[in-house]
């Protein structure tokens, strides 16, 4: 998989701007060549996203240390695609082609989807003959005529076409044949091909491909939003990118084709930002926001990925997403005493009304931020919460400490103490020590770690294949070496600096019950953008 990133026009453009559009806030940060933050901004996220981006960008550019002509790149992380799926908003009508009869007909496309999402998205599906074997050899001949017939049925109804085929990650050739037929029959209708979207696991990959096709409008919108913002500040020379769920970058062109890969980019950015700010490559990261807390792990500066599929809007997919433990605790979490006398934490939060509602800001809602203030962890607000709330707040903080410690412990992967990096606006809640944690690192600029994570995004290349490692293949070591080189080549093709590309992850899963030894091999390489 390559991301096709173009190079910047001039080597003198030595500033990068990272923007993270979160559910509550839109953060922006400008970094210089040494990746030192020179300006930052935090504004409220707007419904149209464009005006929030414009305001954040405007604040950063207004800083005298930021010369707009020196900005070379802008990196944007956004949860817009995720929200569009969750809210069934702006989705395209998709026709689904699965190339997999007769081996893969037991479950039809979109079976088990939430009914409303199915209704919103589907204009029909067809399973046609074809697909390859796990070693890439021909399984069943591809049925071109059936694809042609299906195109006639969906002409004028479908706004996009999603194509998947059996073992496409091993060989996509039947998907490519189908693509050519759809092009011939339906012209330039937007297409999503499963081998460009996700890995092995037909149902989940097909689901991800359909969601990707459905997100076409949304992709156009977020791409237009960044282009508009750039134009309005005369930043037409700037090369924009989006960050994807593994914390690496993709071009606008690539984002338009694979918007589904932006899902999960928020936590990935915050983990990458934390790695950068703390200068730690292997550590745990806790991101405490206003409403919730995510805890993840860094492995060689990248988010550790989940081995299980993730659900998007009620649909099972198999993206590689950061492996997170999320709990409903944040700076705005409302605390109260239940009838039985126990202290309850949330899950409700005052969100960005903290500055009006919390006790320390003169409001009347006790929150965890008030608890942190009373215990001296946070210097925030100007009122002292009344004595009557003191025991409630103290108990609430001790509960919160316990739950945060549990969440951190659940993310740990090995025995022994490990460092923990604390980021996010709510990280003042965290005590100074936690069991199993060697030290808590609280970096400067912790409140814009996600925007920094976007700004330092690298470019990656990936290989995910089932390969035989028996006699005649050169053996396991040789096979892995070939895959490593392919991943590096993919990263360089995507715009990474060749001298700085590294292998960041190798995952090898032996396949059972086969006489010929075979493994599923996943290799990822990444490196900084060349010329930056």
């Amino acid at each position, binding site marked *: 998989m390559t991301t096709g990133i173009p190079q910047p026009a001039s080597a003198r453009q030595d500033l990068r701007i990272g923007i993270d559009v979160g559910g509550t806030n839109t953060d922006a940060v400008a970094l210089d060549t040494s990746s030192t933050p020179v300006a930052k901004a935090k504004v409220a996220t707007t419904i149209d996203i464009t005006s929030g981006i414009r305001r954040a960008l405007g604040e950063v550019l207004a800083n005298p240390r930021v010369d707009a002509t020196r900005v070379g790149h802008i990196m944007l992380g956004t949860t817009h695609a995720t929200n569009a799926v969750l809210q069934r908003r702006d989705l395209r009508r998709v026709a689904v082609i699965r190339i*997999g009869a*007769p*081996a*893969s*007909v*037991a*479950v*039809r496309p979109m*079976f*088990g989807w939430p009914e409303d999402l199915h209704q919103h998205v589907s204009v029909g599906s067809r399973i046609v003959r074809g*697909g390859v*074997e*796990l070693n890439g050899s021909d*399984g*069943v001949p591809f049925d071109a005529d059936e694809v042609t017939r299906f195109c006639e049925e969906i002409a004028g109804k479908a706004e996009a076409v999603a194509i998947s085929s*059996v*073992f496409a990650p091993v060989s996509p050739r039947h998907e490519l044949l189908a693509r050519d037929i759809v092009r011939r029959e339906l012209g330039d209708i937007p297409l999503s091909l499963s081998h460009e979207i996700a890995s*092995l*696991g*037909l*149902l989940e990959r097909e689901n991800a491909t359909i969601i990707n096709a459905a997100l076409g409008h949304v992709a156009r919108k977020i791409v237009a939003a960044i282009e508009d913002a750039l134009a309005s500040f005369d930043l037409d020379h700037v090369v924009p990118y989006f960050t994807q769920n593994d914390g690496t970058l993709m071009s606008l062109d690539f984002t338009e084709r694979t918007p589904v890969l932006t899902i999960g980019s928020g936590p990935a950015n915050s983990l990458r930002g934390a790695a950068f700010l703390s200068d730690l490559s292997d550590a745990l990261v806790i991101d405490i926001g206003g409403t919730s807390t995510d805890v993840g792990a860094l492995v060689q500066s990248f988010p550790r990925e989940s*081995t*299980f599929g993730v659900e998007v809007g009620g649909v*099972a997919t198999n993206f590689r997403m950061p492996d997170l433990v999320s709990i409903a605790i944040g700076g705005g979490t409302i605390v109260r005493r239940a009838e039985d006398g126990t202290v309850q934490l949330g899950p409700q939060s005052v969100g960005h009304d903290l500055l009006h509602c919390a006790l320390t800001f003169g409001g009347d809602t006790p929150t965890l931020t008030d608890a942190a203030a009373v215990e001296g962890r946070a210097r925030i607000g100007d009122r002292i919460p009344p004595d009557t709330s003191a025991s409630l707040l103290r108990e609430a903080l001790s509960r919160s400490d316990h739950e945060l410690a549990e969440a951190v412990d*659940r*993310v*740990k*992967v*090995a*025995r022994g103490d490990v460092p923990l990096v604390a980021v996010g606006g709510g990280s003042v809640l965290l005590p100074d020590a936690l069991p199993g944690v060697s030290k808590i690192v609280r970096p400067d600029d912790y409140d814009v770690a996600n925007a920094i994570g976007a700004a330092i995004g690298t470019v990656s290349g990936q290989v995910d294949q*089932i390969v035989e490692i028996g006699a005649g293949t050169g053996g396991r070591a040789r096979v892995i070496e070939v895959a490593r080189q392919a991943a590096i080549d993919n990263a360089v093709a995507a715009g990474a600096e060749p001298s700085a590309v590294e292998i960041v992850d190798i995952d090898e*899963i*032996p*396949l*059972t*019950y*086969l*006489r*010929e*030894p*075979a*493994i*599923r091999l996943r290799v990822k390489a990444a490196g900084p953008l060349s010329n930056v």
Partner: protein
Amino acid sequence: MRLDETTLPVYAKGAAILGAGGGGSTRPGLLAALETVEEKGPVEVISLDDVPDDELIVPAGLMGSPNVSQEKLGNPEMGAWMRDILERETGKRVCAFMPAEIAGQNALAPVIWGAHTGLPVVDADGMGRAFPEAQMFSMNVAGVSPSPSALIDERGHKVMLRNLDALRHERCARSMVVAFGGSAGNALYVCTGAQARTAVIAGSVTRALRIGQVLADAPADRIRALLDHLGGQVIITGKVSDIERHTSGGFVRGHALIDGVGVDSGRLVRIEIQNENLIVLEEGGVLVSVPDIITLLDTQTGDVIFTETIRYGQRGTLVAFPSPDIWRTPEGLALVAPRAFGYDFDYEPLELLTLSRNGEER
């Protein structure tokens, strides 16, 4: 009793527990079963007693790599192809399918084929759990031959294996599965109603259903409810601190270490894996072994952590349940005791073992 859109998910949950960590995820099989049932109607579950003496029960399942069946989702017509060639081969009428093993994907495949052909499923299986090899069937203990055995792929390729003993069947069938592209449907130990009554493990389908129901009824403390229901014991509650897997001889072998937490702090146990969880060791001694059913459960959700999906850092509760009685007989143990898997010690039933280092009551 019927398997339909309500009972199938319950059944799948129970079958996952009986897999002893093997058998693979039940999700794709469950979706396929739900879809087939939606189209063709529910599957009748019949008692062993309802099968006429001279009609056939077809113990069936999938053979091959779970990774292949993630891509090849199967073809429900395989059931009809299987029935037809077996009827032609034997000259007898097929009365019902039966799960060859009541675990993972293999618990679901015969249900899909039953739904598609309109045949019922017998409330029984040949293992009472999951085992990796074709000689490890209760029908083998009873002297039923594995052949004639039918191997069918999703395209309708058919192979009939005749006159093979269990070990040769195992080798030949595996070669065929590779030639078919890594997965196939297999019907083996096909027997008449009369033979089956003393050769299969009765009640397995309802057992899986009841386990699933226990899990559904106790959302707050699933693991406790499960232990009470099955007479099981907790071996350790902890966290996966090491996992090593490699392929050899067509199997995934390896081990996982579980580091105790809470009351088990300071303990460290090792699970020996060969597709399923086979043995649990602590400080060089055996805590529990195959054929007792050893299953690692997610401590929070009670969901099964399959041997393929064990990962560093997972919070797990390792539990063990008593083996089906058939495997505790000398004939059964000859096939499935630790020695059958290459370990140099004898099986002792779970109930007689002390499951923690200091012998505390758990």
